[in-house]
């Protein structure tokens, strides 16, 4: 699964730390998601999408390996 979390973050000009606080996880988790090392749970993906006021599919999408 790929994501454009880094881009979305850049648009709002917020840091990983800010986003982590907003959705209630550690900074490592946001970093691991951006590096495609960790696929978040559905709950976390929904929380992130809610924060950016977008649909989950606009931030997270299937990659070729999936």
């Amino acid at each position: 699964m790929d994501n454009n979390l880094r881009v979305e973050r850049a648009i709002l000009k917020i840091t990983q730390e800010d986003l982590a606080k907003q959705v209630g996880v550690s900074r490592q988790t946001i970093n691991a998601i951006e590096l495609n090392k960790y696929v978040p749970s559905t709950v976390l993906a929904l929380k992130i999408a809610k924060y950016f006021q977008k649909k989950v599919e606009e931030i997270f999408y299937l990659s070729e390996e999936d």
Partner: protein
Amino acid sequence: MVKYLFPYKFKSVGIALLSLGFSIILILFFTNTTLTIPFLKLYDSFMPLNEPVNKQHFFVFANEDVSNELTGILMIIGGLLATFSKEKKEDEYITKLRLESLVWATFINYGILLLLILTIYGLDFLYVMEVNLCTFLLLAFFRFNYLLLKTKKELANG
């Protein structure tokens, strides 16, 4: 999220107990001393020659070297607290790292044990069993904290 974790503050308690246990092991090993004290035993199979064979040996006080018991308890309780306490910010990714460390520790621990079963025989194997009591927890603890450190390093680089 995993429910059965100790609060974060117990992690440092666990590390302190592990260090204490390990220090005692090293001191006893290098000074060649024992910690022999009278100890209540549930059952003692040792029978002195002048006693009748059928005498009960339950709940007896006997001088016993308790260094194994002491260090074993310290290492097990310390290992459990250190490995199974929450992190400061415990979330789903941290939980995943802990579970992965447990799988890794299981394979490594039993891999080494298999090798030792095939190479160490007789009473010497008792030492292997003693050490093996806490190696699983130690492996899981070090692997988990290595992974945590790695993710923090990635933060510094990114």
